[in-house]
């Protein structure tokens, strides 16, 4: 039985606010994600050398590296949302105070805002460092928004799964990457379209469909994952 909409929205908002309040106390996720992403970005640019990638290959290779940096950064910081609940033994209190679907949506909204902040920070720096011109900035923004949402939805569910297991850190990457691979491929395809100034193809529709499917699966499976 679903609770009244106002109660449900209040619960989801409370979870979202609580996540940000905890985050602003320690700034763990934000600083870890930003530092990890920036370090990876520097490693990538230094490894490519001062010449970078040949202009003819840049539009094919550089979108891949951007999404790999974002994916690994998310894997480094986002699982903590659920792991922290288990480690600090607040999971039971959370189970009592919010319905699973509201909790999932609250955590998803938190993950989404963290990823949006990360993308806003990293993407302009990456484009500037790699001297990668984007002919359709609007399409790039849509790709970042849609793929960022998919990353948040997939990561939230997988983070809830690994929070109850041993060796949580490595397990997240092992479990999440095969789930997020279609999203990564679609995001790269749309980013290439944005860089080349081509119109969005069927990849954007498929990415939105992926987001919808993962969200539905998350809402459907989360009660089973969360409640013992």
């Amino acid at each position, binding site marked *: 039985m679903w609770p009244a909409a106002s109660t449900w929205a209040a619960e989801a908002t409370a979870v979202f606010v609580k996540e940000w309040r905890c985050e602003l106390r320690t700034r763990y996720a934000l600083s870890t994600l930003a530092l990890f992403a920036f370090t990876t970005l520097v490693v990538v640019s230094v490894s490519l050398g001062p010449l970078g990638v040949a202009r003819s290959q840049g539009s094919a290779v550089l979108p891949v590296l951007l999404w790999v940096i974002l994916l690994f950064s998310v894997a480094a910081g986002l699982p903590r949302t659920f792991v922290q609940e288990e480690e600090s033994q607040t999971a039971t209190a959370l189970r009592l105070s919010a319905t699973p679907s509201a909790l999932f949506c609250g955590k998803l909204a938190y993950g989404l805002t963290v990823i949006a902040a990360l993308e806003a920070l990293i993407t302009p720096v990456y484009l500037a460092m790699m001297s990668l011109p984007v002919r359709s900035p609007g399409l790039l923004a849509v790709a970042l928004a849609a793929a960022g949402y998919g990353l948040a939805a997939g990561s939230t*569910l*997988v983070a809830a*799964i*690994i929070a*109850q*297991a*041993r*060796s949580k850190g490595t*397990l997240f990457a*092992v*479990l999440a*990457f*095969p*789930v997020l*691979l*279609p999203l990564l*491929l*679609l995001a790269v*395809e749309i980013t290439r379209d944005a860089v080349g100034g081509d119109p969005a193809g069927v*990849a954007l529709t*498929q990415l939105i*469909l*992926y987001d919808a*499917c*993962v969200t*539905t*699966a998350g809402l*459907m*499976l989360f009660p*089973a*994952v969360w409640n*013992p």
Partner: protein
Amino acid sequence: MESLTKTILPWLLWLWLVGVILGAFLYAPPAVGFRGSSRILFFHVPMAWVSFVAFLAAGVESLRYLYGGRAPRHDRSAAAAVELGLAFGVLATVTGALWAKVMWGAYWNWDPRQTSILVALLFYAAYLALRAALEDRETRARLSAAYAVLGLVVAPFLYFVMPRMAEFTLHPEPVINRTGKVDMDGKMVLVLMSSLAGFTALYFWLHNLQCRIAELAERRASLEGDRP
């Protein structure tokens, strides 16, 4: 009568498979343009098929576990299906790579079907890693079932996205090609269909054995747990 069936059926299965091996090498002619290497088809295709059936069965059994009263037998069945699917999937990948080396000159070509099966293997290897990281039986069953269902939701995207990633494929057409016709010698079709039937029966026999072994192991573990 039951024990007689249990004794005779495995022998009939082994006889059938010996017949398939003899048929593959002595009865079926080599495919035009593929020389003797085409005989790998009679083993490679059934292995890939069994792997697909096993992964699908794992998803269905996981759904039955989560939404069908959480009976442990569904969890055992899903885990056994994944183990067998992985074994047959690895065999299909290896036989495919060997054939690719003979025909295309390289073991790995990032062909859409090679990539799809590789990602599927990664996903189900992650499923087993998750199971290994969870000690409590009920938690293990619940979380791994949720992960398997997530795989069922995400997998179709790979089948739509992967073919677009590769500009061309050297992989032969499926047995039933795009025009809906079987473009193959009659003797080859007979051996291939017999092999498909034999391998499918082999899968169900091995799956049954695996489930029984897992049930006995669980009973033994619970008896040892009861000991003072």
